[in-house]
């Protein structure tokens, strides 16, 4: 019966299914390939379009179906780990939470490694300079008490705590760092994420060395290099505001200069 039906329609069920697949719309994806040693070149891929699809899905589809050597990074796929950031159509984005529909232009997407960081291979960049600058900005805890002492209570309503809390949801994705033109033009500049980290610690009641923080952000490439144009705040996928954090550091260092204390 089935054979008869197929003869009549001239198509078997799997063929009909195949036809559907080939009829599926595709998107043209350009991916920057290569390492620092080889230099990067754009390579074009055709990727099937789905109703609900993220840019990370597109990159994974290429790696799983067309070219297993494509190198890129991701982990959580839900916007928590900060490892999947790439340049999408020239703009830094967290690819796991960027819907293709939002960025598609003429059925095309251009994907490149994150700006302002050395390329390791394809879409994976070396994050070391980004994290080294967190350390250089004194982005580490200076304890007020030892482990034997009782933990002091923190009032979540306190003004300082609210300022600190505004910046602590940073996922270290480096999107702000990629968006910042000052980082692009000044290799010493600590960048928005590291400076925002310094600002949250400066406002943390449990941090014991506010002076060290202000010293660290006052040197070459410190907070005073920021031009306050706000690309960091515009592109931060978590809605954080490094621009205002850096303005806070500028105010704090100025206050200290006029004898206002750290």
């Amino acid at each position: 019966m089935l054979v008869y039906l197929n003869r009549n329609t001239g198509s078997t069920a799997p063929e009909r299914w195949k036809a559907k697949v080939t009829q599926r719309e595709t998107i043209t994806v350009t991916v920057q390939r290569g390492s620092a040693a080889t230099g990067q070149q754009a390579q074009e891929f055709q990727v099937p379009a789905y109703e609900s699809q993220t840019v990370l899905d597109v990159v994974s589809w290429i790696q799983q179906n067309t070219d297993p050597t494509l190198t890129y990074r991701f982990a959580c796929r839900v916007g928590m780990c900060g490892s999947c950031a790439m340049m999408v159509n020239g703009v830094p984005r967290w690819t796991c939470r960027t819907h293709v529909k939002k960025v598609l232009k003429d059925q095309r997407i251009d994907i490149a490694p994150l700006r302002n960081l050395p390329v390791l291979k394809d879409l994976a960049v070396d994050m070391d300079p980004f994290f080294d600058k967190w350390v250089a900005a004194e982005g580490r805890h200076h304890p007020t008490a030892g482990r034997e002492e009782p933990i002091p209570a923190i009032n979540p309503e306190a003004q300082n705590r609210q300022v600190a809390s505004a910046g602590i949801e940073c996922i270290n994705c480096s999107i702000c760092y990629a968006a910042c033109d000052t980082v692009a033009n000044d290799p010493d500049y600590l960048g928005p994420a590291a400076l925002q980290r310094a600002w949250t610690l400066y406002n943390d009641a449990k941090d014991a060395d506010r002076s060290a923080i202000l010293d660290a952000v006052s040197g070459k490439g410190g907070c005073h290099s920021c031009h306050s144009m706000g690309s960091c705040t515009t592109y931060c996928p978590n809605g954080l505001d490094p621009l205002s954090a850096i303005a806070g550091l500028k105010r704090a260092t100025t206050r200290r200069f006029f004898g206002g204390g750290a």
Partner: protein
Amino acid sequence: MTAFHLYMAQRLSALVMAPFVLVHLGVMIYAIQGGLTAAEILGRTQGSLFWFLFYGMFVIAVALHAALGLRVILAEWAGLRGGVLNGVSTAIGLGLLGLGAHAVWAVTAGGGA
């Protein structure tokens, strides 16, 4: 001199310049009512300690402010670093100071008083 001190010098020189700019523009607008000649200007400024100090400080603030601003542009846009950067921006500052001081001296020295 840390980056922070240069930043403060630029902000403070801007602070100093702001009232100078306003007075400079205000006096110009006031003074040209009913025409003005070079002789009239010099008549008012030559030998005036007030205008000497006013424009003297103005010129110092401008030289500092402009040189520090250009220093950042030279670093970020022209990629100058270290000694070259400091040398070029110091030269710009001294050049502006020289030109400005020359002008201030020309209009305030000598004459009456």
